[in-house]
């Protein structure tokens, strides 16, 4: 492998990591605040992809812009889903069976709505940029992804809403005690999580073709990333995304591309066995030894 090959792979891994982080961060926020594993995440990603497609086909809106527009739309959809359904789930500090069943059911409903509206043919968003020599689409996707992640980080650290999110994640009891309005914070947080799913779907839609089952393989990747990153930390997600992207990209050198998903699964199993606390626990261990 020449240095140029290596650099190429490294850059494409980096670009991939951005989008992986966007699709996982929504699940992390939702899990952290509500202790709900959002199995319907893939469904919302699919909606984001079709949303971008419709905007592109009907109004000739650039797919990256369309993906960014999917964010607010999916945000309100998510907030509505929270208001109508999730608010009624029993509260818990751990994931509950009712929440898992509800989210799985929601995914099936979204998927079948997708088949009803758009049919089961493969669709893709095709722009002049898609085939350009330097992959400007990937670069644009990466910039949009990182920009949104930075925005989230700013919101989480410098607004009252952000602090209430972190308070609920770190100690729900104390958050209630100091007057956090849990339903409101959780509703907005769920909206944000779904918004990020929509954004990720829209961005992925301009890279890959999709159908209403879109998102399933990405859901598994999101699980790997979240487990690697630790379940409740946002910066952990970025690191987890980077690790997965690096492993997937460089594995192409040794195994056929068709086995990529197997590699994700392998990494998930490995992480659960060796590093159940995520990469953060590894760092802590290293620090203790040093």
């Amino acid at each position, binding site marked *: 492998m020449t240095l140029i090959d290596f650099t190429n792979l490294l850059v494409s891994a980096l670009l991939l990591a951005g989008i992986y982080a966007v699709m996982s961060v929504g699940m992390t926020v939702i899990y952290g605040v509500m202790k709900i594993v959002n199995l319907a995440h893939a469904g919302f990603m699919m909606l984001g992809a079709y949303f971008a497609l419709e905007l592109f086909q009907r109004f000739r809106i650039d797919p990256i812009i369309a993906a960014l527009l999917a964010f607010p739309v999916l945000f309100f959809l998510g907030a509505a889903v929270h208001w109508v359904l999730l608010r009624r789930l029993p509260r818990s500090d751990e994931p509950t069976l009712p929440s898992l069943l509800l989210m799985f059911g929601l995914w099936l409903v979204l998927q079948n709505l997708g088949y009803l509206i758009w049919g089961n043919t493969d669709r893709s968003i095709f722009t002049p940029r898609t085939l350009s020599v330097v992959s400007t689409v990937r670069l644009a996707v990466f910039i949009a992804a990182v920009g949104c992640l930075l925005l989230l980080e700013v919101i989480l650290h410098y607004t009252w809403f952000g602090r209430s999110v972190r308070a609920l994640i*770190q100690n729900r009891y104390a958050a209630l*005690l100091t*007057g956090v309005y849990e339903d409101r914070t959780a509703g907005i947080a769920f909206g944000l999580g779904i918004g990020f799913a929509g954004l990720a779907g829209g961005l992925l839609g301009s890279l890959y073709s999709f159908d209403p089952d879109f998102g399933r393989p990405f859901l598994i990747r999101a699980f790997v990333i979240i487990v690697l990153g630790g379940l409740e930390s946002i910066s952990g997600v970025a690191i987890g995304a980077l690790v997965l992207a690096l492993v997937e990209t460089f594995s192409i050198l040794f195994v056929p591309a068709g086995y990529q998903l197997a590699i994700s699964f392998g990494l998930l199993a490995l992480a659960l066995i060796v590093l159940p606390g995520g990469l953060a626990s590894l760092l802590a261990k290293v620090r203790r030894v040093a």
Partner: protein
Amino acid sequence: MNQTGGTLLRVQNLEVSYGAVQVLWGVSLSVVRGQVAAIIGSNGAGKSTTLNAISGVLKATSGRIVFKNEDLASLPPRERVRRHISLVPEGRQLWPKMTVEENLMMGAFPPKMRKNVKANIARVYEMFPRLKERRSQLAGTLSGGEQQMCAIGRGLMPQPELLMLDEPTLGLAPKMVDEIFQFVRDISNQGVTILLVAQNVNYALQFSHYAYLMETGKITLEGPGESLLSNQYVQEAYLGSS
């Protein structure tokens, strides 16, 4: 603000259950404005449950929680914070990955309280200079005593009229225990009404104007602090003298 007299909080026939298990059986107590009241008793007697029910984090199954002639029993915790009731919970319960200053800020979360945040943080720093030194440190990295100061500081942020303290000295070094009790005395001297739960019975009784003994979810004895201190049953069961 410093006048004593008049009942600030009256709890009547409070009952609380965790699922099918009832833990409070008709608890009644009252706290006089400007005074220190204490609840003593052994582990699992229901002391913390009582405070959590007053703060609203636990829902009472029946009974009244009357604060300044208003029944709070059906209000969510945030509405009770807005009425200047705050609880410094057992085990501090800080947000470990937030800075000291963020922990304090969050103490006055309800929107209408936020405009006083800066002034209130300044007051807390004046009282605990050590917190000011560590303002941008993560709360999880503080020592036990500093964490307790931070928790008390957070409890002061809503400018409480009623401050509830749940085991504020548990697990602290003896020197720190004295220091924390001195802080509580200072807060009391500023006119804040205090409801204290403590396993350190000796301290708590010397400290309080009025005290309640709680056993298996019921108030079994009450009276001025000194009278409980000299009560033979209390001495034998809780102070270990025969």
